[in-house]
């Protein structure tokens, strides 16, 4: 009896699992695996240990020496030998691009050296290489090679936080004229927070009105909220560009009305980005709040007022707390979505409004520095998860309702 019950139970669990299996597989293959891949990429050092194995091994003990001087002849000889092999196997370009991330100009140094490398050294390999290009006599060039030699590196993560290892492998803040990423990260969080706040201020009264109107009117208004939602993001962004530009309809209307004398600068700066992003993300705030408010029986407010509470007290003490799960869900949704935004700031923002995703896209597509792109992604992921944890600690997952 009990056994058959258990069997039936197990069959049901299995059937349930079977139904969920496609989604679980999908999530695993298209969500968890890429994220894991990204995290791995952010610490992977690149092809040097495979392309120049002996040089990589020899450079390890050299890196421990203090103070740094030029590596000895054995390193030079191994390097020259392996450089020739790499050029023959056509693996050199890959290595050259990787090393160019360390030092600008490394790519052509390496390619040119490989092209002109003689079969046998004239004197020592050290003199030969330095003769080909005096840069081979600089510690900095070898230190960069040394940094690329282990399998794993924290270099990309350091770079994502505007730090680097100097020629003696000490961690240093990067030169301020090249520091980009920390500022971009804080800017991203700042823009996301402001957009979330603006969405909340606009969405809450709207959702309240929608929830209290009769069904037919509410549905009609709901379509107005959803309509932009069904339009492509690019179209909406481009439309904002047209509306907000100096000779666009908004500026012309304001000038015609006499509100302003000079056209306002509303595009290619922060206000433009905030306006467009708030508009694009507004439905993500309205919908969760609305769905929670729909579930609040109107009797509660009536009961509170009939017991003598003025409207605002009743609202504050009864309605607001009941609608909070929708608010928290909406805020989280909008904040997380805006952290990843880049098309809107790219098109409407100025140079001071670019978010981290734009830099990630740039590194991925243009300079092919996937390590640094992955490191920035990892930092962004850590920040998001940390914020989410703090948030659930403060609000609690029970206090959140997504629909």
């Amino acid at each position: 009896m009990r056994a058959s019950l258990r069997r039936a139970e197990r069959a049901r669990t299995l059937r349930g699992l079977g139904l969920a299996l496609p989604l679980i597989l999908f999530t695993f293959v298209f969500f968890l695996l890429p994220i894991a891949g990204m995290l791995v990429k952010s610490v992977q050092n690149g092809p040097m240990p495979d392309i120049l194995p002996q040089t990589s091994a020899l450079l390890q003990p050299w890196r421990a020496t203090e103070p740094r001087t030029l590596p000895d002849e054995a390193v030079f000889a191994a390097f020259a030998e392996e450089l020739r092999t790499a050029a023959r196997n056509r693996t050199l370009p890959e290595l050259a691009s990787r090393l160019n991330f360390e030092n600008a100009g490394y790519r052509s140094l390496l390619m040119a050296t490989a092209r002109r490398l003689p079969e046998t050294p004239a004197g020592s390999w050290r003199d030969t290489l330095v003769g080909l290009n005096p840069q081979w006599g600089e510690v900095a060039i070898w230190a960069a090679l040394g940094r690329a030699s282990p399998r794993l590196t924290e270099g990309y993560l350091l770079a994502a936080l505007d730090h680097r290892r100097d020629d003696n492998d000490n961690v240093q803040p990067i030169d301020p004229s090249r520091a980009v990423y920390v500022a971009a990260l804080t800017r991203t969080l700042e823009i996301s927070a402001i957009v979330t706040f603006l969405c909340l201020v606009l969405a809450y009264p709207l959702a309240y009105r929608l929830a209290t109107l009769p069904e037919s009117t509410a549905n009609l208004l709901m379509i107005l909220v959803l309509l932009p939602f069904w339009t492509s993001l690019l179209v909406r962004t481009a439309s904002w560009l047209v509306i907000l530009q100096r000779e666009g309809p908004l500026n012309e209307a304001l000038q015609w009305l006499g509100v302003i004398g000079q056209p306002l600068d509303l595009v290619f700066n922060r206000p433009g980005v905030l306006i467009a992003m708030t508009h694009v993300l507004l439905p993500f705030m309205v919908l969760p709040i609305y769905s929670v408010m729909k579930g609040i029986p109107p009797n509660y407010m009536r009961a509170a007022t009939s017991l003598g509470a003025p409207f605002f007290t009743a609202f504050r003490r009864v309605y607001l707390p009941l609608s909070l799960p929708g608010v928290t869900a909406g805020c989280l949704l909008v904040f997380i979505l805006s952290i990843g935004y880049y098309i809107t700031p790219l098109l409407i923002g100025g140079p001071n409004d670019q978010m981290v995703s734009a830099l990630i896209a740039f590194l991925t597509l243009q300079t092919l520095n996937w390590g640094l792109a992955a490191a920035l992604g990892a930092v962004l992921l850590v920040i998001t998860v940390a914020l989410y944890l703090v948030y659930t600690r403060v609000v609690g997952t029970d206090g959140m309702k997504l629909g």
Partner: protein
Amino acid sequence: MNSTIGRLILSAGVAAGLSLAAGTAMARDLTVVGWGGAAQAEQNKAMFQPYVKDTGNPLVQDSWNGGIGVLRTKAQGDSTWDVVQVEADELVLGCEEGLYARLDWAKLGNKDQYLPGMADECGVGTFVWSTALAYDKSKLGEDGPKSWADFFDTKKFPGKRSLRRGPRQSLEFALMADGVAPGDIYKLLATKEGVDRAFKKLDTIKKDIVWWEAGSQPVQLLQSGEVVMTSVYNGRVFAANNTEKTNFALAWPAGFIYQVDSWVILANSPNKDQAEGFLKFIQTPARQQDVANVLAYGPTLKDSTGQIAPNVLPYLPTAPGVIEHGVSFDTSFWVDNIEALNERFNAWAVN
């Protein structure tokens, strides 16, 4: 049920076998790869179809969107492409890496017929496009900007101006504005002082720059009056004036930066002889003019501008009296320095 599956597997096997046999037995037709779109359609009309008609050789077309990674894959293993149109950076990188066949110029015609720098050991330049200074003549009339110094002069020309986002070209134009001779620009940019000087010059109009990203933006910015002048691809100005009836003008004498798109033959091509015959056939002044007349891309052959339609000539970077003001985009410099200068540019832009 089982028999259906069996049949499927069988037919798939037969199909695979057949295609394998076809692949090894038949020599592949010459495959030419362009960038698709209007440009390739025009090349097809002016160059590819005449080749097929005159020589009777079949020709297969394909198109791509650039990227050295694609060429690295194509140059290894089974060959599927023969002749590919590449941009300047792919030409430099691929040639260095041995992805392309070394060209036999004896078979391709005279190297001296080409404008300087447009014929090299790996590639045959096919057209020239450029980034130049443009303004709206209907607004500024004859008093438009004459130099990049004017571009940086917000007293003489109040209002916003726009440049392509990023250090590429911005730094070159800044140095031109600062009075550096075109020939010295890249020599100077290779030094820290030169880069500092360029950024210092950009500082003077930092608040007045709108940065564009896509090639269609500068034209739109000019048209809407958002900016008084801009850097722009010359072909876009030609297209806008033709289709939108705008009156934009290019200030060629101010100096501009040009890049060459070239044909290369992949190193693993089994049709190298045929490919060279094809390149010799299509690279004639007449055929280059046909393409230029529609797209306003400049021909690379010296005597190719004679028959260009008068309405196209003002937009051509290689027109006589124009090309002398141009600076060839230094691809090797930028491939080496793009990461460092990008960081510098991004940091500069926000501070």
